[in-house]
């Protein structure tokens, strides 16, 4: 491990003499730095999106899977009796941790967004809702439906699968999209570094010819270029990631009223993840420049 660190340090510091053999290239260097920074900035958001939608999918999948609802649709005079019957059945059902009937106020709150807070539920044939929380093992929904059908004709069991699935699926797709974006950003970084390295190699054809003439190996020549582009990509991506993290910090915090949109960000140790972006950018630049240099050098005598 220490030898790896040593190698990286030797590579980063380099041989001051070999750094000097390639002429400094001011403006192009800044472009590479800037492009790497932009890519890293965007990568932080792609990462935040992926992690947030991952969390969302997990939460929806988890919470909704463990709760179900029973609707009692019955004439007003039978509703209370049917509700009691349903609750009795639920008490004896294996896998049900907890079940309770929602009171009038709670039902009113649920409907308030549609009907307004003034509504008197007593005047409407609103079904009675029963909230059912499952144990880890879950219950046998088909069996429960059969028992309810026999004893409580007005009960309808909704285990949420119908609308849970598309939500979880949407969140998973969103996460996939985030990772695909991150990969595309990586590939684009490779393309950009390759173009910049090719331009630098072409502009320095004369330098390379002189170095070959005095006995420099391909490795020596390539390293001067590789080190430069790797350090630039690392530096740019580091600054870009920091700015990206700053921008994510400035996003509004997750809140119930904002819905899932405000959950975009990092949680816990995930805040450390964007720090691997500069390392990845450096690795991508290292490989891309190495490939470009080897290709270019093979063409020269």
């Amino acid at each position: 491990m220490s030898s790896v660190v040593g190698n990286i340090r030797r590579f980063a510091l380099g041989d001051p003499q070999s750094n000097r053999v390639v002429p400094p290239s001011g403006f192009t260097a800044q472009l590479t730095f800037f492009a790497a920074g932009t890519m890293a900035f965007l990568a932080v958001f792609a990462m935040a999106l992926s992690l947030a939608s991952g969390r969302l999918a997990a939460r929806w999948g988890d919470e909704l899977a463990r709760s179900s609802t029973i609707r009692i649709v019955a004439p007003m005079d039978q509703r209370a009796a049917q509700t009691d019957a349903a609750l009795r059945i639920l008490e004896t059902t294996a896998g049900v941790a907890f079940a309770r009937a929602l009171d009038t106020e709670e039902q009113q709150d649920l409907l308030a967004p549609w009907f307004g807070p003034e509504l008197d539920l007593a005047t409407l044939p609103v079904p009675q809702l029963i909230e059912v929380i499952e144990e880890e093992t879950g219950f046998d929904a088909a069996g429960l439906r059969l028992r309810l059908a026999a004893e409580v004709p007005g009960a309808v069991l909704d285990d949420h699968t119908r609308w849970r699935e598309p939500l979880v699926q949407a969140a998973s797709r969103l996460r996939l999209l985030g990772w695909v974006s991150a990969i595309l950003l990586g590939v684009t970084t490779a393309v950009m570094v390759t173009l910049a390295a090719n331009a630098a190699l072409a502009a320095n054809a004369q330098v390379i010819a002189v170095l070959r003439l005095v006995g420099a190996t391909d490795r020596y020549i390539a390293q001067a270029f590789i080190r430069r582009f790797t350090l630039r990509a690392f530096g740019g991506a580091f600054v870009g990631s920091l700015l990206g993290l700053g921008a994510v910090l400035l996003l509004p915090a997750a809140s119930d009223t904002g819905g899932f949109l405000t959950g975009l960000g990092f949680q816990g140790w995930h805040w450390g993840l964007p720090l691997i972006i500069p390392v990845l950018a450096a690795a991508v630049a290292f490989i891309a420049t190495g490939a470009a240099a080897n290709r270019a050098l093979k063409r020269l005598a």
Partner: protein
Amino acid sequence: MIELENVAYSYGGGALLSDISLKLAPGSFHFLTGPSGAGKTTLLKLCYGALLPTSGEVTLFGDDVRGLERDDIAMLRRRMGVVHQDCRFLDHLPVSENIALPLSVSGRHAEAAGDDLTELMAWVGLTHRADALPPELSGGERQRAALARAVIMSPDVVLADEPTGNVDWEMSQRLLRLLVELNKMGKTVLIATHDLSLIRAAKSQIQARVLRIANRRVQLAGADL
């Protein structure tokens, strides 16, 4: 040391050189002459591995050049000093660093060779120009700097392509004296030039053989130059 056997070389269409056999023995001094475009530079490039022969065999320090990897060629160049026709330098580095370049690319630090470098700079008379950039040098200074760079690794062979191409008579005499001195130190020297008076001047100082390229072949020129 450098051997060519039945070597031919052609650029795309026609043959430039054909049926060339040549042997540079250690410590020998050769001139290579011939009209412009006869293939002097091409022959030199074959000698330092920058070109591969179209047919025939080139043997450098005992190795067939076709079997050499790119890194082997790089190692060979460290044993040969090449003075290029247009003396290419790294224009962003001062003269002293350009002269020490062969040391730094082979992993030896220029500081370690500090004394050698100072001595060499004095030998070619460039001490006062050590910090100048190559584009600021005159033609003669460039040629001398190129020669100093070619010999800093103490090579076994010095190959020079028109080393007196852009300089006046006095300067060319000075460069010639440097090359003759190198030969007296035991280095093999091959100089491509079309300057016959330079060859005549050399003959009075040293035992030099003259190779002439004519009709795509190399002939040993007579003593009647």
